[in-house]
């Protein structure tokens, strides 16, 4: 469907929105181009679990009609988006990557879904993910893995691998992810895209199927920093249906993305984000990024955050604990899968058989781990201690942010690993999130954006930027400056180096 004038699918969201608004493109044209791309490549990539062709086209037609009638359009009107299959969509299947919800059609929209619709964004479909967002590779999806568009034999990150792969394969210019321990940033890093975990409470969790309530946060995924900011503004903001939602204005993220600069900023480098387990090419690109920041006028400050060493351990107690409770509702009584109901078995047996059949290994592992950590007798040692670690991490961040405006680190210790490599080694898999987890624990804001390819494997490396809670705009200010400098240095956006599919 490549047009002679413009290649629609390679446009940024900002450009598409502008062209739809000016009438240069119709929303239907844009949507059709992306649906055609999905048709062409998704068999290989497997980014989508469900493509809502009719719904997307209907929304596109509505946007075009609105424009023709001279009605005011949203800032992202007519821009296609890939929605992680963790957000409920009224009338459209929502599976959370799990067999236990196969075929479930929610009777309600998540707040994020509603905000996207209200903003005239065109939702193309639902993207693949690790089951219940538990994983760092999307291999834990009950519906099969997603390939990394840079190398289809490698993982696209997780849990939001479908969203990152959709962006990197030009199936959608925008996507939504959720980040409990890094599930937006880690997939962004390994696919050469941009992903932002807003401050906890910045984006409503209502209708986002819970994994770990105190850590989960939805956020924008895109190919450019500005696109991420535009999407951030659309989905963020107070929601009275989510008690943990922040009742304050959304930080000026778009303005920040349009005015990238690090001049005079103090940028922290935490010594705990280095050492064993970090791939050489990742370390190299990170160091180059730090040098770049210095060139751009930032002051680099070394930081010590000793509690970060305990973050991973604390995370693997808190997240499983909360998930063991959040996932209890999948009991075969009210919705979803029911197995073994032969008229003779009890409800209890049917629940246990259904959960056995409907949950994958990683979910079972975490449910058992969480059940253990919350048991009387273990609570203080495990869950209680993990919550204390959380306090210490928050304090380390507070101390750090007294000295610096933002912190930078590699987003992941390695580039995309081959599908299957860590499939049966949970601890190795968990290490993929070692850099991203501290921000979930503290609830602050963080972004990953591309900072080059690792020389040894030619795969993308992500730079993580961390800002204090409610200072999400700083991510975009710094991110935009770094992105512009890199694109100038490379001569083009990094993603253009990805092989064509």
């Amino acid at each position: 469907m490549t047009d002679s004038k413009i290649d629609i699918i390679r446009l940024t969201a900002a450009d598409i929105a502008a062209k739809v608004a000016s009438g240069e493109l119709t929303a239907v044209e844009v949507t059709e181009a992306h649906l055609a791309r999905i048709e062409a490549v998704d068999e290989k990539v497997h980014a989508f679990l469900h493509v809502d062709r009719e719904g997307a086209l209907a929304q596109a037609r509505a946007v075009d009609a609105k424009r023709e009638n001279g009605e005011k359009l949203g800032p992202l009107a007519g821009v296609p988006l890939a929605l992680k299959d963790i957000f409920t969509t009224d009338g459209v299947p929502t599976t959370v990557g799990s067999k236990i919800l196969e075929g479930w059609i929610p009777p309600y929209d998540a707040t994020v879904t509603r905000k996207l619709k209200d903003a005239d964004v065109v939702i193309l479909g639902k993207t693949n993910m690790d089951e219940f967002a538990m994983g760092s590779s999307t291999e834990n999806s009950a519906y099969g893995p997603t390939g990394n568009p840079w190398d289809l034999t490698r993982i696209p990150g997780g849990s939001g691998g479908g969203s990152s792969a959709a962006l990197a394969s030009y199936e959608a210019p925008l996507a939504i992810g959720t980040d409990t321990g890094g599930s937006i940033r880690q997939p962004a890093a390994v696919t050469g895209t941009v992903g932002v975990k807003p401050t906890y409470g910045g984006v409503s969790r209502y209708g986002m199927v819970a994994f770990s309530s105190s850590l989960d946060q939805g956020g924008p995924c895109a190919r450019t920093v500005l696109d991420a900011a535009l999407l951030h503004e659309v989905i963020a903001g107070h929601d009275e249906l989510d008690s943990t939602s922040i009742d304050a204005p959304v930080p000026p993220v778009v303005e920040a993305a349009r005015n990238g600069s690090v001049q005079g900023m103090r940028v922290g480098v935490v010594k705990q984000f280095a050492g064993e387990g970090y791939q050489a090419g990742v370390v190299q690109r990170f160091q180059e990024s730090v040098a770049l920041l210095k060139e751009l006028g930032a002051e680099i400050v070394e930081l010590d955050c000793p509690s970060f060493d305990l973050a991973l351990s604390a995370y693997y107690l808190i997240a499983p604990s909360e998930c063991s409770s959040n996932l209890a509702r999948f009991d075969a009584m009210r919705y979803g899968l029911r197995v073994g109901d032969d008229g003779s078995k009890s409800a209890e047996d049917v629940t246990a058989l259904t959960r056995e059949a409907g949950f994958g290994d990683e979910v079972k592992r975490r449910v058992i781990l969480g059940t253990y950590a919350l048991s009387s007798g273990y609570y203080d040692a495990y869950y209680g201690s993990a919550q204390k670690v959380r306090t210490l991490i928050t304090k380390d961040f507070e101390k750090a942010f007294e000295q610096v405006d933002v912190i930078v680190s590699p987003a992941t210790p390695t580039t995309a690993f081959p599908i299957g490599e860590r499939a049966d080694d949970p601890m190795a898999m968990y290490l993929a999130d070692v850099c991203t987890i501290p921000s979930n624990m503290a609830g602050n804001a963080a972004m990953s954006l591309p900072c080059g390819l690792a020389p040894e494997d030619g795969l993308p490396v992500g730079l993580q930027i961390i800002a204090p809670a409610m200072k999400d705009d700083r991510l975009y200010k710094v991110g935009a400056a770094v992105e512009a400098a890199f694109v100038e240095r490379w001569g083009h956006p990094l993603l253009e180096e990805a092989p064509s599919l």
Partner: protein
Amino acid sequence: MPGITREEVAHLARLARLELKDEELDHFAGQLDDIIGAVARVSEVADQDVPPTSHPLPLTNVMRADEVRPSLTPEQALSGAPAQEQQRFKVPQILGED
């Protein structure tokens, strides 16, 4: 370092309503033992006088006015039900009491 036994895993699986197969029990017991061994480090701070953090943001008193909002229709409520009867969710026999 505290470990976790196969029996404990079986007990936890029952609590969590997971009808694990024998081979799964073996498999998980080994893995969980490794994971618990690794994460048990957190108990280093158990004695420290630090308040636990249950919520990442220090919000309090988020409440709503006592005003009725529209409910789902019974059809919507039951739309995902594996089985239904008399506009109610039909579930297998419930054993045990209260």
